[in-house]
């Protein structure tokens, strides 16, 4: 896979089936979509809010629509995609629960990754300093962050259960490495889930 891919993106790229129809929600500059198109022959589509990123995607020959995932997913028909991807964006959604439902409406399965707010460094920062943590994966101060719904591994698993969503796979990462699943809620800096509807 592309050598520049972040570990969670590399895992997603490895697990997307050949030739699948893929929607990457919050696709950034399109690095994952371009990899999927070039190495897996997928029908790659994206939604991205930042016009500069969209412009880079178009320059890569990708089909990416500038838009707000909170509002624009509704314009995609049911089951239009085999795979929907939401990488490091769930925590920016106005309603993460609605977003998950929409992902699994437009796609038959979804990959969702997010920073784990229960990571021990977060807990330590909050406990020792009494202030909102600023880390690699949540790098912006509380008042200017786009991350409006902080979530933990356990919270996500609970939400999936509440929504009747099946967790097919899970991966956990700290820095650039995958970590074991045991104690992930403490030990994982960020998490990736593969989910499907019932």
């Amino acid at each position, binding site marked *: 896979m592309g050598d520049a891919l972040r570990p969670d993106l590399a895992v997603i790229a490895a697990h997307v089936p050949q030739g699948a129809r893929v929607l990457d929600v919050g696709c950034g500059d399109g690095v994952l979509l371009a990899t999927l198109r070039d190495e897996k022959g997928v*029908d790659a*589509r994206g939604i991205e809010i930042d*016009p*500069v990123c*969209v*412009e880079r*995607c*178009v*320059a*890569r*020959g*990708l*089909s*990416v*629509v*500038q*838009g707000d995932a909170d509002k*624009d997913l509704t*314009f*995609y*028909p049911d089951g*239009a995609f085999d795979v929907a991807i939401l990488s490091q964006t769930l925590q920016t959604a106005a309603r993460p629960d609605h977003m998950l439902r929409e992902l699994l409406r437009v796609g038959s399965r979804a990959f969702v990754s997010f920073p784990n707010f229960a990571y021990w460094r977060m807990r330590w920062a909050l406990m020792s300093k009494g202030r909102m943590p600023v880390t690699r994966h949540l790098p912006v101060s509380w008042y200017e962050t786009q991350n409006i719904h902080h979530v933990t591994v356990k919270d996500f698993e609970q939400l999936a259960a509440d929504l009747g969503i099946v967790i097919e796979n899970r991966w956990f990462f700290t820095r650039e490495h995958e970590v074991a699943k045991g104690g992930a809620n403490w030990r994982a800096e960020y998490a990736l889930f593969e989910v499907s509807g019932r």
Partner: protein
Amino acid sequence: MSTPFQTLSLPTDLPLDSGQVLSGVQIAYETYGELAGDKSNAILICHALTGDQYVASTHPVTGKPGWWERMVGPGKPIDTDRYHVICANVIGSCMGSTGPASAAADGAPYAMRFPVITIRDMVRGLVALLDALGIERLHAVVGGSMGGMQALSLAANWPERAERVLAIATTARHSAQNIAFHEVGRQAIMADPNWQGGDYYGGESAPDAGLAVARMAAHITYLSEEGLTEKFGRRLQDREEKTFGFDADFQVESYLRYQGSGFTRRFDANSYLYITRAMDYFDIAEEHAKDGQEGKLADAFAGTKARFCVVSFDSDWLYPTSESRHVVHALNAAGAPVSFVELSAPFGHDSFLLDVPALDRVVKGFLDG
């Protein structure tokens, strides 16, 4: 006008949406760059309301550079070293294609006997030109404003003819506001005593005053308030004080008068009537309505195999971003691969013609990708 145009006579009649038929149709066009042996590298560029086929070469009447010379040429975003670019004058216009100033079967100009045409009729003319040139499938069709309407119309009605569709600062239907502005322009022309019911050809005078007013009103809609304020503010023209009269005291007045009078030297008033009417009638969804049901835009694009790129500008209030989003949502619903970006530029609707480097990158990326 005596300028010789490169024209092609269509071998067959052109059926129109109105039910009428145009015979002996001429299409005037320009080409740039070599056509590949397999004819796979042709790009059709569609011009806007008052544009013409001189997209990247000197205009024979005004002597000015082509209207999109910054975009089209060797090494430019639409690279004529790679692509064979075709740009034709639409039917109804006045730069060599058959329009109201052309001679009808009786030898006299059509004038208002010219049939009312639609955007789809213009595209019929362009498709007939492609047929005559032996170009089965375009690498891309590209257009801004009314040119974007033609690009979308081609995609909806001739879905096999273009691999890529690039629609800039445009819409899939004309809004009430757009129609209202056009009506102001048409009324200005028809209120000019020199209009004479459209039969002014060969006479002493043409409805230049009316046409100039139409152009002035339209020109305001092509700019943004921010752009106008930056360019002119309330500055006075060639004077220190207001005259307390109706001369062009303000720079913006003098600029509009200049735009209006310059326009009458290169454009025919009746063509302005016909082309604005065609734009007002434009509604792709309505065209594809069935059994009395309200048409859905997604249905119009259901059969397309093309890739789309839609671009809007944040300062364009004539064809605002919401119009582009409407097109994009329909394309998504139709499952078409589509890109969309709203670019930031201060120039209003005219941004697509002006120096917006991000547009260059998007156009090049989309055509080459």
